[in-house]
């Protein structure tokens, strides 16, 4: 089963009276347990496609199936619950809740899911350890560097153990060294936990770490396939 199956997806934005094509007849299959990168220049539609795949935006037409579920059929509440269980999100600007510590940020999805306190505590500490921040669990986002914040965000995305993690330009707000370490972390976690990672990025470091790359331009997919195949081609 595909991690994500997208068929004939269309999305048009309207800015004032001007219509802009976000996605045009996009169909793609994202393989499970792989690190897939959506790449392309700005405005190519990679973030739009990621938002659709992340169930945080609705398409004008087409079909998105995640973990066997046609997401278009879900109500808003059901879609929220689906996101909570099935999808982890990592954002370019980390989007941590500033009033909460690193520990609490990672704990928050578990609190929403009413996970028991002892299981919650074990899970949070395990994830913070996995991203190398066990010693900074009580630090607030303002006390952490950009790289550390992104690590917390990755741990938070993994809190509910979703089969799919989506990351939008996760290295764009970081310097190249820190970005490289984040890419390495995601790669490692993806392999260790056998999670499907889909990353929208035009960062060569990210593309270089991918199993598969989907290239986009003007809202369309121009090519896709395993990195080695493409490089070979």
């Amino acid at each position, binding site marked *: 089963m595909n991690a994500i199956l997208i068929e004939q997806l269309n999305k048009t934005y309207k800015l004032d009276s001007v219509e802009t094509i976000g996605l045009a007849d996009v169909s793609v299959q994202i393989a499970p347990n792989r690190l897939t990168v959506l790449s392309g220049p700005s405005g190519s539609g990679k973030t739009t496609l990621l938002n659709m795949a992340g169930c945080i935006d609705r398409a004008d037409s087409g079909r998105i199936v995640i973990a066997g579920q046609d997401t278009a059929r879900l109500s808003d*509440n059901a879609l*929220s619950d689906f996101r909570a269980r099935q999808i982890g999100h990592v954002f370019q600007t980390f*989007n941590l809740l500033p009033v909460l510590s690193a520990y609490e940020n990672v704990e928050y999805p578990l609190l929403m899911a009413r996970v028991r306190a002892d299981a919650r505590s074990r899970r949070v500490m395990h994830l913070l350890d996995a991203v190398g921040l066990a010693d900074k669990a009580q630090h607030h986002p303002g006390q952490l560097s950009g790289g550390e914040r992104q690590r917390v965000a990755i741990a938070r995305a993994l809190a509910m153990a979703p089969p799919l993690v989506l990351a939008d330009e996760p290295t764009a707000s970081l310097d190249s060294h820190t970005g490289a370490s984040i890419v390495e972390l995601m790669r490692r976690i993806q392999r260790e936990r056998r999670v499907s990672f889909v990353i929208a990025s035009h960062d060569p470091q990210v593309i270089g770490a991918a199993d598969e790359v989907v290239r986009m331009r003007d809202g369309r997919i121009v090519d896709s396939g395993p990195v080695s195949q493409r490089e070979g081609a």
Partner: protein
Amino acid sequence: MHAFWLALRNLQRNRRRSMTTLLAMVVGVCALLLFGGFSRDITLGMQTDIVQHSGHLQIQRRGFFMYGSGNSAAYGIRDYGRLVAVLRGDPVLRTMALVVTPTLQLGGVAGNFNAGVSRTVMAEGSIAADQSRMQAWNDYGFPLTSRPFALEHTAEDAAVAGVGLARVLQLCEPLHIQDCRPGEVMSDHPVAAASADAPADVMALAALEVPAGRADSTARIDVLAANTHGAPNVGSFTVVKAEEQGVKEFDDVYLALHLPRAQRLVYGGDEPRVTALEVQLRHTNQLPAARQRIEQILATQFADQSLAVLDFATLNPFYGQTNSMFSVIFGFMFVMVSVIVLFVVSNTMSMAIIERTVEIGTLRAMGMRRGGIEALFTLEGLLLGFAGAAAGVVIALLLAIVINHSGLSWTPPARTDPVALTVRVWGAWEQIGMTFFSLALVASLSAWWPARHAARLSIVDALRHV
């Protein structure tokens, strides 16, 4: 629980704004509770005044209250001595009633014929010792000095007049009344001369009442009243004191007499009656039970007379009107404060939502439902509301203590002497609870509308918000 936890943290995020919102609520709650405490103080003060002078309940002949003031002789209660004895001896009433005392209200004309002046009066005959005991009633603990009834320990023909009446009757000098120049106006006035030429029969009746050896320097007056047969009767009295009555219209006609002399004036040699039995209770909240018991007694033992039991609020419509006025003012203030709280909290929450739009998008992306976002911000408003209302209650209680110990005084309407300025916030739990929960509710409702808007934001737009 996590929403509460997060809401609490979020409120601490912009402390200055949260404090400003809290301050607005504190000011509103304090204003409401202090005004409520002040109006409660006035209400209880009025009640104390009324109960001291005429008791909690009065038993009257049915119709006397509405129609009897001009013809009190027609509304006399027969066999009142037995009724007093039954009420005083009743085992149920005995635990509640402090004083049961008869009074006789009558209208007439009082004249100082030596000065050639007279005027209509509203006289009340009562038992002075009972009235003194009634004046000691102070169930609400006002800082009042209990004054004995001025007629107590005086001769049977003694009377107490309102200062206004004493002035009109030119009794200023013997009664040592200030701001009064007796005779200056009236002595040269043609009407005064006419008054001096009172009807011969009245003068003759008055002469019969004058005791031997009467001194001219005493404040003697003659009171003319109609007896039960409609004939005029005159009594001669010595005014021993003039007392300010607060309301000028009443002050100008007030005359207090000993009950036996008042009865002699109205009933002459017939069986003496009274127009009311005043019943003063230990506590006002005993009124319904006492009333029920008295009505039972009247129905079973005094069914031959058509008697009614009236409470002090019915007998004093001004009391109810004043309470209503304060309720309306309180209601108006409550609406104003609620509107202010609504706008302040709504503004605070709207600002918070604008600042935290990206967070809203993030929480939604993480799987929080719209209802969760709505609950989160509404909870913040509710917390603000509860914190502001709680702080307001505490500060209002402290301010009330300060005001009550400040030594400030004022003279309320219809009173003659100043009383301590006090506000009764402590103990007004119903008002505190109502203010607390209502404003907390207004605060959460104020937050709910912007919260609803926040919950309906597009996730993608929220995440893109700068």
